[in-house]
């Protein structure tokens, strides 16, 4: 085994991951915060107003990174779900289930910002635009996964069932996407998109990329934090969790 494979092998063990994530968490939060601050400065102050949409286009800097993250989180969840089902790795189950609510939150923000942007642009809060509709179905898929996970008593069985559902969703997602596009063209929907095919000026682009980077880092920070808590709960009877206890108890006394 080379050192890279060995690293992943070790990462799969809950105590190791707990320490690893704990070490990285403050850094991830710090990096996400700094990148978000820089990105938002660029988005709100240095980027020029759009010649068509005015200042309202600036919501794109929240909308687009969140839309990317909604999809990324789903892929991350499904990939971990696959690993969990095939190799029965407990950490992957936990990671998959930790990323579901985060992905749902990002998707929800995407929908909210989309409709906030829609009001001044299209004159309506909601329009059945192909991308927004796909995002809505994605949000429902997230709700299904989260709902199933919380409906089953046994935590590990629940994680496996929910991971399985996430995988079915992955198979179905392209069909949903293309059917929605077809449906939208049939019904002559809106053609103005939040990010059009038009070229985007570099002064507008770099804040977007910075913010996308910030959301990715934040996603991992959040997943790590949630996974740490979930692992403590799952492994509450294990020695390594016991070993953590006296220290925290002492600080409380």
């Amino acid at each position, binding site marked *: 085994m080379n050192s890279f494979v060995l690293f992943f092998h070790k990462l799969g063990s809950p105590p190791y991951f707990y320490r690893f994530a704990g070490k990285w968490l403050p850094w991830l939060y710090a990096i996400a915060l700094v990148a978000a601050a820089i990105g938002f400065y660029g988005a709100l102050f240095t980027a020029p107003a759009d010649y068509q949409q005015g200042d309202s286009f600036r919501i794109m800097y929240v909308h687009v990174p969140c839309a990317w993250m909604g999809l990324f989180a789903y892929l991350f969840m499904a990939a971990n779900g696959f690993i969990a089902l095939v190799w029965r790795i407990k950490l992957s189950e936990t990671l998959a289930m930790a990323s579901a609510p985060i992905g749902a939150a990002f998707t929800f923000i995407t929908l909210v910002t989309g409709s906030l942007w829609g009001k001044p642009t299209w004159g309506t809060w909601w329009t059945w635009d192909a991308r927004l509709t796909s995002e809505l179905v994605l949000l*429902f898929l997230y709700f299904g996964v989260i709902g199933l996970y919380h409906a089953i008593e046994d935590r590990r069985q629940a994680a496996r069932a929910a991971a399985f559902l996430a995988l079915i969703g992955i198979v179905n997602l392209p069909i949903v996407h293309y059917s929605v596009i077809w449906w939208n063209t049939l019904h002559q929907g809106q053609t103005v998109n939040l990010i059009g095919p038009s070229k985007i000026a570099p002064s507008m682009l770099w804040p977007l990329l910075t913010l996308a980077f910030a959301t990715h880092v934040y996603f991992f920070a959040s997943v790590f934090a949630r996974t740490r808590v979930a692992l403590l709960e799952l492994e509450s009877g294990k020695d390594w969790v016991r070993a953590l206890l006296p220290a925290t108890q002492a600080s409380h006394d």
Partner: protein
Amino acid sequence: MKPGTTSAACAAVLRRDLMLVWRRRGDALNPLLFAIIVVACFPFALGPEAAVLERIAAGTIFVAVLLAMLLTLDALFRSDLEDGSLEQLVVSPHPLALLLGCKIFIHWLTTALPLIIVAPLLAQLLQLPAPVLPVLIIALALATPLLSLIGAVCVALTVGMRRSGMLLTLLVLPLIVPALIFGAGACNAAQNGFAYAAPLLWLAAWLVLSIIIAPLAAAAALKISLS
């Protein structure tokens, strides 16, 4: 057919499930009544003008049929789980996916087929133009098996729960959106004089894919639920 062979096992499952539906044939009428009542509600809500009803006819019938089937899905494996028959199916030496496929087929045959048969009646209630009716029937014939198949996978995931009805709806509906889009879309296209073959072919392709994958997925999901 020699007893103990896989084909005999499939025949046994088919015969037993049909017999069970026949013994409780009163229950089998419920989805039909449900769909008819739902469809009948729309003229009350929207007014009886033919021009209005005509426009929403195909979509409404599609939604009513899907909801009616969704209500019956919950029971697909429930009684088998409660009386231990499901264990016997899993322990039997035959491929579980095949046996589940037989059960799914009977579900379609006893809930979807009657709904398709009354579809002309529903279409008449909502003033669907006569030339669109064949398209509606074909679209339903392609979309309802999809719901039975995809629904079965979701039922297999929720089978251990005491009350899974609402959750099941939450799991199935996002997955079945394309069936609604393509099925009702084909009818609308036909109604507006556009070509309607493409969405039907999409449905057919998706159905073929599901017939192969869904029983296997249902078997895998059932193993997770029973563990």
